[in-house]
């Protein structure tokens, strides 16, 4: 009973912080926060494959980038394309891509899966670079209109206002994260984890592995696409190097690993830590890449269970100490 109360209080505090954030921290950090939540969603989708299904998606940027481009292209070419559909079209594009690739992807696991996704990620990156007419190549697509949030007959909220956009983005992503959280708790979620632990046994228990894997892949692709869509709305510019290149594939992996792949919230924490770190380091040096890389190496060496794992282990130790004394 007490646990439930604590939980409600915690969520209440979180909601209050989210609500007053822009006013307290200003425009710069408001946008910074939106970036953080976008990557949190992105990293969580990666972890639904890595931590939950046991496969490393090494080209995850292809889903993020496809979603971002879908949104940008829709907004550029279709007059008056509304806001929510613009986000959904990103999710649709990401999910569709995953679905199309799944017949090949479900056949492999382990290193082969990582290499296959790496290959596809690079393939899409190169294709996007070459087909400039569609994607604008390196320069990308920019200057598309950011539609207002329209609730017909009630209100029209201007999304070019950064504070308004903050609330919209945070709400959208919070909803997505809640859906994904629930997803992991369903019977289907336990199938995914079963595949991670022992795919062969799952086969022998009567579960259709290819179908199950394909569905999980599609869900991850779709939500990564939504993350990309919100990113497109935030940055107002989508370019191949920004959203499709390999460093954008590595980012969610690092975030998930730093936060801890063994938990749902790990990637979110990882995203937060890495974003804060980058913001901090950038004040002292332009060499964020170096610091990021070095810190990442240190984490892999000494904190492989991630921050969440470290926290659990420490808590267990203290708890044990309490019991003993």
């Amino acid at each position, binding site marked *: 009973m007490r646990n439930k109360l604590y939980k409600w209080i915690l969520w209440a505090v979180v909601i209050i912080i989210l609500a007053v954030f822009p006013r307290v921290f200003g425009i710069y950090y408001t946008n910074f926060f939106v970036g953080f939540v976008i990557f949190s969603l992105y990293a969580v989708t990666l972890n639904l494959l*890595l931590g939950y299904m046991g496969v*490393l998606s090494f080209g995850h940027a292809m889903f993020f980038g496809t979603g971002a481009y879908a949104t940008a292209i829709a907004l550029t070419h279709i007059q008056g394309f509304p806001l929510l559909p613009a986000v959904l079209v990103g999710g649709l594009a990401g999910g569709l891509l995953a679905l199309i690739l799944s017949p*090949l992807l479900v*056949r*492999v696991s*382990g*290193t*082969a899966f*990582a*290499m*296959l996704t*790496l*290959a*596809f990620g*690079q*393939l899409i990156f*190169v*294709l996007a670079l*070459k*087909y400039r007419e569609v994607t604008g190549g390196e320069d990308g697509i920019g200057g598309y209109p950011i539609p207002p949030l329209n609730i017909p007959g009630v209100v029209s909220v201007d999304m070019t206002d950064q504070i308004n956009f903050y609330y919209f983005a945070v709400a959208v992503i919070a909803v997505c994260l809640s859906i994904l959280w629930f997803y992991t708790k369903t019977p289907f979620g336990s199938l995914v984890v079963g595949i991670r632990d022992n795919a062969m046994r799952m086969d022998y228990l009567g579960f259709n592995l290819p179908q199950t894997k394909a569905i999980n892949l599609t869900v991850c692709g779709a939500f990564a696409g939504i993350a990309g869509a919100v990113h497109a709305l935030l940055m107002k510019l989508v370019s191949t190097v920004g959203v499709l290149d*390999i460093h954008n594939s*590595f980012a969610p*992996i*690092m975030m998930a*690993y730093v936060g801890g792949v063994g938990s749902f919230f790990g990637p979110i924490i990882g995203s937060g830590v890495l974003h804060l770190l980058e913001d901090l380091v950038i004040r002292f040096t332009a*060499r964020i*890449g*170096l610091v*990021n*890389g*070095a810190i*990442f*190496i240190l984490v*892999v*060496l000494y904190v*492989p269970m991630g921050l969440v794992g470290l926290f659990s282990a420490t808590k267990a130790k203290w708890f044990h100490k309490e019991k003993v004394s």
Partner: protein
Amino acid sequence: MSPTAVLYVAQAIHGLAYGMLLFLVASGLTLIFGMMGILNIAHASFAMLSAYFCYQVLLMTGNFWVALLIAPVVAGICGVLTERFLLRTVHKHGHLAELLITVGIMTVILEIVKIFWGAESLVVKIPQSLSGLVNFAGLTYPIYRLFIIGLSIVILGFMALILFKTRLGKIVRAAVSDADMVSALGINTPLVFMLVFGIGIWLAGVAGAVAGPLLTVFPGMADQLGMDAFVVVVVGGFGSLGGAFIVALFLGELNAYGIQFIPRLAPVLMFAFMAFVLAFKPMGLFGERE
């Protein structure tokens, strides 16, 4: 000789040269994976590092041959240090950790290179003795590319000799096939690992140094080479040198002709081929080990 024939031959030479470079890089990669189970994402980064070292030594001594000699060795030493202090420590955390640390290493090398040499392209001039064209059988061939092919063949021949004719080579081949068994036989496997890793990196270093004049030395040079080397290893089969050789040459030619005749589709072909092979033969065409 008709212009088209000349074109075809020129492309064939380019393809062969690039294929040889690919094989130099891929051979180390596939040996390392076969023996240690580590997929070294940073492998091509070491090649790039060597290219920068080559530039630097050339700058300081003015002698291309000295640079070519020293640079890969320095890169190899960096590789050995990496294996000894980073990879060995992380081994107990599992394959994912190993993979991720090589990603970290790749990032760090990239940044280091940018810090010391900047982000601009650096020009490494082909030495006088190797530049220009040579005539043979009515065709002209670029000397430097022939040099690359020749050098690669010499090095690889030498490697093959060691691998197949010496006791050390036997140990290495055994370790690639089954490292635990070799260790159980009382052989100092950590030392063998370090050695093979170092040589693998050295090979990549030679490729990098030699590729400098061709590809120009810039922070992005690891990307193309690295990706292609991965395709070679994956398609050829993890741990299979023969497979890597065949696929490397094939890829080199595919690249050369592809870029010339179907520039937009060339990368698609390569990845499509890789995806196809992976989906039906996850261990590569000639691979044995997971």
